[in-house]
């Protein structure tokens, strides 16, 4: 094997090590070409990623419900999900952005507005949509055993009209 390839593999492994311990070089560099280079390489090769799957724990699930209206009358209601498991997980990752941005009220509304725009595209007859984001509150295993039951708690609710979007 050519020396270059060997050096590349070792260098890539060392970068993966820095990514895994959350010390990827670009974080230490000033903004500029070199930092950008490390950033792009880190993302394309996933060496910048740490592998914290399900760590430090599992957060709650979010569900996005919607109610579509036309001239004040309810025309359709449902929630944004699918039976396709692969897509369902990816949608879950998307909707988790609403969870992460809980403190940022404006950004949360912008995210909800984007979902509303998507619904208006799919249901052209609707002129108003209500977006309800619910979080699944799961009791611990022990309190579940004692009788507590899970429930959905509304964490965001907003109305959007076609004209404002």
């Amino acid at each position: 094997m050519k020396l270059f390839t060997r050096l590349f593999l070792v260098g890539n492994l060392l970068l993966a090590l820095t990514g895994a311990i959350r010390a990827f070089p670009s974080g230490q560099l000033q903004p500029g070409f070199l930092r950008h280079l490390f950033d792009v390489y880190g993302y394309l090769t996933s060496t910048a990623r740490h592998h914290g799957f399900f760590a430090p724990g599992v957060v709650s699930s979010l569900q996005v419900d919607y109610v579509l209206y036309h001239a004040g009358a309810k025309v359709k209601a449902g929630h944004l999900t699918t039976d396709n498991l692969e897509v369902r997980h990816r949608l879950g990752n998307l909707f988790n952005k609403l969870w992460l941005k809980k403190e940022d009220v404006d950004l949360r509304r912008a995210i909800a507005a984007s979902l509303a725009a998507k619904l208006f595209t799919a249901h052209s007859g609707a002129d108003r949509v209500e977006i309800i984001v619910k979080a699944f509150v799961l009791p611990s295993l022990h309190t579940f055993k004692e009788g507590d039951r899970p429930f959905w708690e509304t964490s965001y609710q907003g109305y959007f009209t076609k004209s404002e979007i």
Partner: protein
Amino acid sequence: MISNIQARVESFFTPRISALPFQFLRVGTAFVLLIQALMIAPHLQDLYGPGGFFQGPLAEILLKNSTPEFISLEILSKLLHLRPALLLKLVFLSYVIFLFLVLTGIWLRATLFLLWALHGLLMFNWGMLSSYGVDTFASIILLYLIVSPKDPEQGNANDLEMARQRGFCLRIFQLHIMLAYCTSGIYKAMGIQWWNGEVIWRAMMLPGFGVWDASWLTKVPWLTRLLSLGTLLIEIGYPLFVLASRRTRIFVITSILLMHLGIAVFLGLWTFSCIMIVINTSLFLLPYRNETNCDTRRCENLVLAH
């Protein structure tokens, strides 16, 4: 003394490996990614397109702090004078075609490189918002497949040097995966849910993951703790178990395969689990497939050369 250490290091990093592990890795990965692509295809624009659930400028705001700016599909669409949605369809179609070419082993070096580039283009644009572990490991695998020596049909299968080149590449990839499992286990150990078993309960009961009703776990609370502590043990100890002896390697790889099977069945993460099963089989089972009960170091030289 020094030459002895040097010889041991050389022997550790350049075991002689047949083409089979990398062939299995290539075929297995391409097959899983093809299935994944078929599942994603009907929702392509929703997940990866500018008109998806998180549209245009909003996606850019959300991506700003998590991804570097490089070749975005939006910039590319302006350069090529194509609508972003159409460009996305073309990129995705090319991605599927290249997956098929990699699966069948046609023009491997070039197709693997282009597949890796297309995968990066899809995942690290709007697709980044919905990506998860399977995308991370797919990009890692594709990079090692690009760098790994050619398959025997294109090179000399019996060439000792070729077998050693493969061995070096495989060893570095093994270390990469050991690093991934070990650090993943350490990050898990920082959360209380992994020590009291709540993580298993939550993962299996939350609608985002759970596929089956798991309320039966309340009858066997010890099982959740056993599974979570067991996961910490095999993930943190993965490098040690893999390197210590044949028995510990078989124990940890069997446990890891069962864990990924469980993740697939109970949490519905089929593509992620299949990719991890392909990795573990390629790196830690197939290279040692002729291994019998013998001293570990002697086995390294006996079983890896065939």
